[in-house]
């Protein structure tokens, strides 16, 4: 048992810090720290910087231009980039599609698409969820019918995050209605500029059009865009979901959120003293901090096990639930700390160029928006209800 990093890991840590100090543009870190809206260009700029360093393919092997890092190195990188308020790496190409293509894609697909993910030529989005399916992902209704050397796609996807920026979408489509529901699903790569595709933004409760609906009407997709074998898409989809689970605990986000909360609670006054000194508030803050201290170690334990080759079992579901509960509790306490100024809602204030003064303190609007927006944490990526089912099934074996 040893809780500290090895000398090599410490050296890597220092390398990451140095890189961030030198290369992360202050303009971007200030936007992230102050909860401003990030544009498509912001993400692209950061991806390009990382790619130049060879650090964009965080979870990719070196042969495909990735870093080849192990789980601990990935953890250190994620922790430090979050602490430094770097923009997140947009996950759809790098974290999600990349590993699927490497494992199941054709040589031509790998040669064409993988470099384009890294160099920013393609912005991918995800076509998994459908209206009315929710957590029941196998309930795919969007159909792809073979017609010569094309598939003709009809149907609708939803909750497509940042789909408004994307030129490419990977989709689960139904190619057969025989057998079990899971057996007739295929995995298709679709150019968003193909005629018949329509994207409509969905405004969420924080006022942001973060997700989209995507409609397909007689969309013709070249058959070569099929990944792997027809009707085997469910296998690839599950593989993707497992890989999506890196950084599922969100320790870095939670730590950054906790630090911001302490700063805010130190500025707000209650009965003439900083709110953070009020025992009723301090009690809740301390409980979540204690929870986070323990969860960070659970996360390291899981990472250490993964680094030594163990496959993650129910642990990643446990981290998903506890991690999101902790982050949502921090969001709720931050909104509470803000007080009466949590109520005003001037969305334009979040634009980078906006010269609107904030209503109340500048952290007020982002606090309420983060509370509202992060309700999603316990809904998406497999809802916490789905995770609890996985956990109990793993141990009860019923």
């Amino acid at each position, binding site marked *: 048992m040893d809780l500290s990093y090895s000398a090599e890991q410490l050296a890597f840590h220092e390398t990451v810090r140095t890189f961030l100090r030198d290369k992360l543009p202050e303009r971007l870190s200030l936007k992230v720290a102050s909860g401003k809206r990030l544009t498509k260009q912001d993400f692209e700029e950061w991806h390009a910087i990382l790619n130049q360093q060879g650090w964009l393919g965080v979870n990719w092997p070196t042969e495909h231009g990735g870093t080849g890092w192990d789980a601990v190195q990935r953890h250190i990188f994620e922790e430090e980039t979050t602490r430094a308020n770097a923009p997140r790496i947009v996950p759809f190409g790098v974290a999600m599609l990349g590993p699927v293509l490497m494992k199941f894609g054709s040589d031509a697909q790998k040669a064409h698409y993988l470099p384009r993910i890294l160099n920013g030529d393609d912005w991918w989005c995800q076509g998994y*969820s459908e209206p*009315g*399916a*929710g*957590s*029941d992902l196998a*309930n795919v209704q969007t159909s792809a019918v073979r017609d010569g050397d094309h598939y003709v796609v009809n149907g609708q996807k*939803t*909750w497509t995050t940042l789909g408004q920026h994307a030129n490419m979408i990977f989709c689960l489509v139904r190619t057969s209605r025989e057998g079990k529901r899971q057996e007739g699903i295929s995995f298709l790569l679709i150019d968003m500029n193909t005629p018949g595709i329509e994207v409509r933004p*969905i*405004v*969420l*409760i924080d*006022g942001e059009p973060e*997700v989209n609906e995507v409609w397909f009407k007689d969309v013709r997709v070249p058959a070569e865009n099929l990944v792997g074998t027809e009707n085997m898409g469910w296998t690839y989809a599950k593989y993707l979901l497992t890989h999506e689970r890196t950084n599922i605990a969100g320790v870095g986000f939670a730590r950054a959120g906790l630090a911001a909360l302490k700063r805010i609670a130190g500025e*707000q*006054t*209650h*009965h*003439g003293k900083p709110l953070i000194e*009020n025992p*009723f*508030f301090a009690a*809740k803050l301390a409980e979540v901090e204690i929870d986070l201290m323990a969860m960070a170690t659970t996360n390291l334990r899981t990472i250490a096990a993964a680094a030594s080759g163990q496959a993650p079992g129910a642990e990643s579901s446990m981290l998903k639930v506890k991690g999101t509960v902790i982050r*949502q509790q921090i969001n*709720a306490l931050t*909104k*509470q700390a*803000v*007080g*009466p*100024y*949590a*109520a*005003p*809602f*001037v969305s334009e204030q979040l634009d980078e160029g906006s010269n609107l003064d904030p*209503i*109340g303190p500048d952290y007020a609007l982002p606090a*309420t928006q983060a*509370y*509202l927006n992060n*309700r*999603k944490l*316990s*809904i*998406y990526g497999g*809802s*916490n*209800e789905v995770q*609890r089912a996985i956990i109990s099934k793993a141990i009860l074996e019923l």
Partner: protein
Amino acid sequence: MDFKLTEERQMLQDSLRRILSDTTDHESIAKATDSITGLDPELWEQLVEMGLPGAMFTEDEGGFGGAGFDIMVVAEELGRAGLPSPLIDSALLSGTVLASTRPALVEEIIAGRIIAFAHAEPDSRYELSQVSTTAQQSGDGWVLKGSKAVVHNAAAAETCIVSARLAGATDAAEGIGLFLVPTDAMQMRDYPLHGGGRAAELVLDVTLDADARLTEDGFALIQTAQARASAAQCAEALGLMETIKALTVDYLRQRRQFGQPIGKFQALQHRMADVLIEIEQVRSAVINLCGHLDAPERELHVSAAKNLVGRTARLVVEESIQMHGGIGMTMEYALGHFAKRLSMVDHRFGDADYHLERFIALAQSAA
């Protein structure tokens, strides 16, 4: 002991519920929030005609109600419809102050005129006695200087009641005067609210006539006004919860997943049961508060109700969104508006922790 509504209140409830369900939906409310008043003026006129502001005042004051349970019936219905309205601010905050200082103006409030209540300041958080805005005698009149924060319905009001310190330390209960100030005499920044409706930041540097002063020692009056406004806010929250409950129950019944309605899933059933239990608790807390608005232990019930409502609001908001899944997070579906509005109940008149601490202090000083 009797928990039935009087016939008059029952009629008021019925007609209010009918008119609101006929004329409002969450889209029209969202649209109104973008307008300068934060409320459809025609609808407000209809509500005034029905006697909504009048129900907040006693017959002596020119109204036809004024008791705690009148507030409860009306505010619960407004909550049920998710409708932001000037009722809390104009009829309960300003109205309570005016009824005992400038009774003639109550008549105008009953007629629908909106008078905003500008008491809280950028740094006062939930402290009622914290007033930095100053009032100084100047000749026959007064000069007021300072800032007021998150003043609801300010842009829709021609007049505001403004608190300003005549004497004492910044957080002293004594020495807080109340003044009538024409809104256009102040610098105003008006904005929409997450929960619907609008508020404004006000900056004062105004000279007023001598008769602008309503009282020179207004703290007790402000506390009474806020107790009545809190009763309305808690009842409104109850109404919001009732609608959210109905939406969620409906969703659990209609929405199918894994081959059956999701309401068949026992884990959701049990969590829904806990939500229902807590909403019943809120109803009881609102009854307790509304039944004690004129009792010596009024403030204890204010804090008990605000604490319970604050805690339960968070539970109901979070559980209802979670049970809906993604659709519960969109502004296209009604839940979004109701949940956001309910999530704001803790940011006015003191949050659950503020009132827990206050309840402890009040209970200990009573013991």
